[in-house]
């Protein structure tokens, strides 16, 4: 008997041409549109509805999960993982397909759901527990364990708005961690808090995962999800791309990301294979130049790289921000250059423009790195291309000593001076 059967699942959204999905509207808009309809037909124009597109977040996804199995779901941002979880958690309905779940389902799509700042820790435990699906008796039974796990005994009767963010998050996780459904669906909530508490969280998730419960787990932390899962499903562009043993799938996933990225000085972003389908292509092209002004994709330690990003700014937005973040080949982030943090000079009138970034000095250890490019406004990202380009940092004698530190000490080259008295 399978615990979960997913068959032919699909979910589509209507996306307006501006690239955003804003579900609600005002009555005025609907009335105006309806009033204008006969006029539009007279003029032979297309109806207003055709200015929206259908976007399939998930398409024909099928898989089975056996009772007690732990299945991890990985994939790029915008691949559809969260949509899948939302459907499994009954938050949103599918457009096609069917899911059958055998057993009590508990969903953790975030910690602290329903927490109210005015209520005390004790009251929030009951409220949150109830929202997660625990009965009052269950909460009574596990109350002391929850409090002990969260380490907030002394502050149980203080309103949660007075908690530090660490305490808040510990309490939220503690309640969620003591949920005991037969099927558990978890979305990247896992390790929260400081290092010590994070270890506790991961350990607890391990206990839950191997306690005979059926678990579906989404995370970007590949090593962790690989360790906890019996099986991995890789979702790409809304479909199941590969499923199998964790080690195999992670390997395939990582080499895919790296393969796709050519080591080139001029990268086309608008039809980049790693482009997230969620966004309209506003980022157009990325160019890298070395200190001599010529296109390059390898740079010495302590050198300079000039990045140029051709993009189209979203219309109707006051301020747009561009950012480039650098990751090493394993996917660990190293640093970010962004117009929010670093000074931005110059102005531009039109929507099409080029953002240039001078990254100097390159204080990164020799090796290969990838770049993620993002464009956003004050509220949200408008376009993102992950692993857009790859570049190499070449060893160079930056300090004049003929040596650089060993790579094991980290990706950053620190500058400093020693004197002795």
């Amino acid at each position, binding site marked *: 008997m399978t615990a979960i059967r997913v068959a032919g699942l699909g979910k589509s959204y209507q996306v307006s041409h501006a690239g955003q999905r804003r579900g609600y509207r005002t009555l005025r808009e609907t009335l105006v549109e309806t009033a204008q309809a006969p006029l539009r037909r007279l003029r032979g124009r297309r109806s207003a509805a055709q200015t929206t597109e259908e976007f399939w977040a998930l398409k024909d996804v099928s898989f089975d999960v056996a009772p007690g199995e732990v299945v991890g779901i990985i994939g790029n941002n915008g691949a559809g993982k969260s949509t899948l979880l939302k459907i499994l958690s009954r938050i949103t309905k599918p457009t096609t397909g069917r899911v059958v779940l055998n057993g009590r389902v508990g969903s953790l799509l975030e910690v602290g759901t329903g927490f109210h700042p005015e*209520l005390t820790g004790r009251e929030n435990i009951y409220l949150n527990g109830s929202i997660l699906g625990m009965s009052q008796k269950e909460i009574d039974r596990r109350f002391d364990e929850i409090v002990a796990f969260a380490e907030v005994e002394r502050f149980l009767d203080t309103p949660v708005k007075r908690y530090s963010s660490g305490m808040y998050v510990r309490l939220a996780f503690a309640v969620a961690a003591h949920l005991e459904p037969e099927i558990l669906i978890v979305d990247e909530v896992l390790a929260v808090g400081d290092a010590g508490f994070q270890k506790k969280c991961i350990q607890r998730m391990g206990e839950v995962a191997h306690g005979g419960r059926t678990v579906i787990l989404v995370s970007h932390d590949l090593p962790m999800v690989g360790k906890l899962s019996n099986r991995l499903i890789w979702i790409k562009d809304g479909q199941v791309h590969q499923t199998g043993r964790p080690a195999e799938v992670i390997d395939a996933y990582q080499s895919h990301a790296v393969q796709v990225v050519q080591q080139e000085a001029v990268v086309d972003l608008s039809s980049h294979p790693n482009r997230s389908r969620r966004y309209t292509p506003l980022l157009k092209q990325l160019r890298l130049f070395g200190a001599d002004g010529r296109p390059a994709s390898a740079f010495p330690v302590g050198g300079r790289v000039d990045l140029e990003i051709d993009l189209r700014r979203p219309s109707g937005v006051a301020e747009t921000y561009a950012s480039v973040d650098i990751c090493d080949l394993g996917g660990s982030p190293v640093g970010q250059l962004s117009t929010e943090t670093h000074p931005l000079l110059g102005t531009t009138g039109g929507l099409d423009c080029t953002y240039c970034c001078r990254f100097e000095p390159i204080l990164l250890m020799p090796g290969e790195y990838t770049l993620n490019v993002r464009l956003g406004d004050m509220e949200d990202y408008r376009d993102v291309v992950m692993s857009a380009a790859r570049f190499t940092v070449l060893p160079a004698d930056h300090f004049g000593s003929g040596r650089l530190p060993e790579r094991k000490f980290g990706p950053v080259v620190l500058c400093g001076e020693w004197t002795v008295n």
Partner: protein
Amino acid sequence: MSTGLSKPPDSTDAGDLAPRHDAADLPGDPRLRTVIEPPQGWQVINFGELWRYRELLLFLCWRDVKVRYKQTALGAAWAILQPAMMMAVFMVFFGRLAGVSTGEIPQSLFFLSGILPWFFFSTALTNAANSVVGSERLITRIYFPRLAIPFATVAAAAVDLVVACGLLAAMVVGYSVAGYTIAPGWTLLMVPVAIGLVGLTAAGLGAFLAALNVAYRDFRYVVPFFIQLGMFATPAIYMRPTAGEGEAVALLRALNPMNSLIETFRAGVLGGPVPWGRLGVAAAIAVVVFLAGCLYFRRVEERFADIV
């Protein structure tokens, strides 16, 4: 039911579970089986599920009530003070200035017994209408029957009403001791009936407006206006039926269910005659409004998480 807790598959298993595309029904305890399918138009009102989630409904109600009076100096006394202040205003404007007569019933009692059920209705309706939009974070993160949201706000308003009825009860006792002929007797049974029907109407209308508000945010501006209008359209709050009333007023009295329910409430509390005919009509309207409102809510609720 046996949960089939077999040993978790060996991590060396090949991931060779070829999914079959027939979604044939699986064996297992049907009580614990959940089937998720694309939306299918009109949905049945899920009373069974709401009953299973009753604890959550009570917790949400408890949360609303607690939060409302946290950090206020007067706390729950506001549940009494607000209607009491309105009663005072009515006594000045309708009683003194407009010269409306309330017959043998003391003015304060007359007005308060009209104000309390109206307050319950208007608070429940206003809060319910904004409840789903206000619970956006909950709706997009966790599943529970969404009707619990507006229902919980109606329940929270009922709690306030019960507290305020304390004042009403004290006044009734005080006045009858002071010599007025106020003899509720068996008519007290009509009080919960009237309140129940008011609650039902508020729940139905509230669910309807809550659902509308998710798609069309305009309604949050429209609701307060219509409630104000509603108060004027419910003469029972501030006026006794008099012989010289115009036809319009008589029509309002007959058709507006809130009117009949408030009259019933007042009769229940003060021992007057119960308007059975109009009460029957109001009860029928309440049930229809409740079912229609909930049906509409259920039809639209599947899209809440996508558009809120």
